C-alpha cells in the first residue's frame, strides 16, 4: 500500500509577538511541524508497518519547507521520501487552495492508495483539508478516525464522533483524517535522524502541478483578542491561614 501523509509547517505559537496595535508578528517565530500532523505520520507508519507498504510525506507551503532541519525532522519519523510544493502563495493558502494543490500532487505522485491527514493544522485548525482532498480526488473520505486496520484490501476504521463510534469499511483509494490521540507521535532515534538526511525530497513548484486557484476568502484582519482585566490577587502559599484567605474570596462569589 502506498500512503501519502500530509503535514503543514506552522509557527510556534509560543513565539508569537503581539504588537502595540494588537496585530501579531511571527518574525521571531521558530517553525515546526504541526503537532497533529506528527500524529498522522505515526498513524500512517503504523498502518504501513502492519499492512505492508510505504509512506511518503507531503506538504505545500512557503519557503520554510526548504529548511533542511525540518526536512530531516519529518523524514526521521519514518516516511521513505517527501514531496513538497513550495511557493510563497501557499504560506497563506486557504483550505481549498491547500486541498487543491495537495490533490494535484497526489495525482502526480501516482498510485497513492491512501492519504492520511491530521485532525487539523495546529495554526488555523479548520479541520477541512482532508475532507476537501477526498472530494477533489473523488475518493471516499472520512474524518475523526481513531483506529484503523487493513483487511482484504479495505480499511476497517473506527470513527470517533461526539456520542457514538462508527465502524467503517472504507474502500481504497481513500482519504482519512485521524484523531489527535489515535497514536502518540514517535520519538525519533539517532539512526532515524541520520537516515533522514539521506532520504529523497522531491520539490515541485506550482507550475509543476498546474497552478493554484484564487483564494476563496479575504483575510481582513488577524488581531490579538482583548485581554480581560483580572484582579490577580495571588496568595503565595497553602498554610491554613492562606487557604482561609483564598476561601474568603471564594465565599463572596458563591
Amino acid at each position, binding site marked *: 500500500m502506498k500512503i501519502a501523509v500530509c503535514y503543514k509547517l506552522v509557527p510556534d505559537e509560543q513565539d508569537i509577538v503581539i504588537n502595540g496595535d494588537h496585530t501579531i508578528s511571527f518574525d521571531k517565530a521558530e517553525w515546526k511541524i504541526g503537532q497533529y500532523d506528527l500524529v498522522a505520520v505515526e498513524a500512517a507508519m503504523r498502518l504501513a508497518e502492519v499492512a505492508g507498504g510505504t509512506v511518503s510525506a507531503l506538504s505545500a507551503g512557503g519557503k520554510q519547507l526548504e529548511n533542511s532541519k525540518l526536512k530531516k525532522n519529518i523524514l526521521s519519523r519514518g516516511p521513505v521520501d517527501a514531496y513538497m510544493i513550495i511557493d510563497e502563495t501557499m504560506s497563506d493558502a486557504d483550505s481549498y487552495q491547500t486541498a487543491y494543490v495537495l490533490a494535484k500532487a497526489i495525482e502526480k505522485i501516482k498510485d497513492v492508495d491512501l492519504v492520511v491527514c491530521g485532525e487539523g493544522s495546529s*495554526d488555523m485548525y479548520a479541520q477541512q483539508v482532508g475532507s476537501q482532498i477526498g472530494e477533489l480526488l473523488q475518493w471516499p473520505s472520512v474524518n475523526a478516525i481513531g483506529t484503523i486496520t487493513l483487511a482484504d484490501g479495505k480499511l476497517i476504521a473506527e470513527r470517533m464522533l461526539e456520542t457514538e463510534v462508527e465502524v467503517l469499511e472504507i474502500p481504497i483509494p481513500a482519504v482519512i483524517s485521524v484523531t489527535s490521540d489515535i497514536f502518540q507521535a514517535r520519538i525519533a532515534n539517532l539512526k532515524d535522524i541520520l537516515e533522514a538526511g539521506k532520504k529523497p525530497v522531491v520539490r515541485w513548484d506550482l507550475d509543476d502541478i498546474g497552478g493554484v486557484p484564487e483564494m*476563496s476568502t479575504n483575510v481582513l484582519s488577524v488581531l490579538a483578542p482583548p485581554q480581560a482585566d483580572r484582579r490577580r490577587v495571588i496568595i503565595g502559599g497553602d498554610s491554613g491561614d492562606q487557604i482561609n484567605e483564598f476561601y474568603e474570596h471564594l465565599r463572596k462569589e458563591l
Partner: protein
Amino acid sequence: MSRVKDVWVFTEKQESIAELCAGARQLGERVTVLAVGSRDRIERIIAFGADRVFYLGDTGADRTVEDYAFTLSKLIEEEAPDLFLFGATKRCRHMAGRLAARQRTSVLSDIMEFLTDKDEIQGTQMVYGGAAVRTLASKSATVFSVVGSGVFTSLPEDADREGDVRAVDFVEPAYRVRCMEKRERGGTSVDLTAAKRVIAVGRGIAKEEDLKMIEELARLIGAEIGCTRPISEGVNWMGRERYIGVSGVMFKPELYIAIGISGQIQHMVGCNQSGVIFAINTDTAAKIFSQSDYGIVGDLYTVVPVLLEKIRAAR
C-alpha cells in the same frame, strides 16, 4: 443592508438545530433546514424557526448521513443558497468540507461572530490556538460555515409556526464509505455552556479517583465539572464534551475555578470571558495566575480538602 436571503442549515443534533435556526433568521431572510432522519422531527424544526424543510429521508442499514453529500451537492447547484450553516460536530465539519470543495471554495470554520451588513459575508474565528482572532470574508456565491458552539441562542419553540416541506430525491453517491456498526460512546451529553459555575481540572490531578474530591466540591457549590484537553483526550478521565478551550467548549460562566491547570492559551480562550476566575496551582510561575482574579500557590491536595471542610461548615 444584507444581501443574505437564503440561509440553509444542516446539523445532526436536535439542540443545535434550534440555535442554528435562530442564527439563520438573524442573518438572512429565509431559513431552510436540510433534515435527515425521522420525518417526525420536521414539525419541531419548523417550530424552531425554519421557513422551509428539505426532507432528505432517513438513514438506515444501507444509507449513512455521509451518503447524502451528493444529494446536498445537487441541491446547492440548483438553489445556490447565500449562506450554508453547519453545526460544530465532526460529522457536520466533514460534510461542510466536502460540499464546499465541490463548489470550489473553503469553509469558514468555527465562526464566533458573523457580519453581514457589508455586501459580503464576514466571520471571525480563533486562530493560532486562540492567540489571535481572524476576520475573514468569503468570496464565494454560497458561503459555507461551521458555526462555533453556543454562538446563537435558540428562540422559544413556536408550535404555531408554519413552513414548507419538500421531500428531496436521493442521489446515489458515486463513492461511499460503508458503516458496519455503530455504538454509543461513553460520556454524558452535558452542556457546559449552560453552566453558571464551573470547576475545571487539569493535569495537576494525579489519579482518576481523585476526581471524587472535585465532584464533591462541585456538588457543594452547584457547579459543573470541566477539564483541559489532556484530561479528556490524553487520559480519557472525562468525556470530550467537558474539555474547555479553543478546540473544545468556549463559554462564559459566572464563576470559573481552575484546579491544577497551567493556563495555556489554548485552554484559556475557552474560559477567559468568565465572570470571575479562581486558580489553584503549585507553580508560582504558572500562566494561569496572571489570568485569574484570585489564585493560591498551593497543592490542590491540601487546598481542596480544606475548602470542602469550610464550605460544609458554612452551611
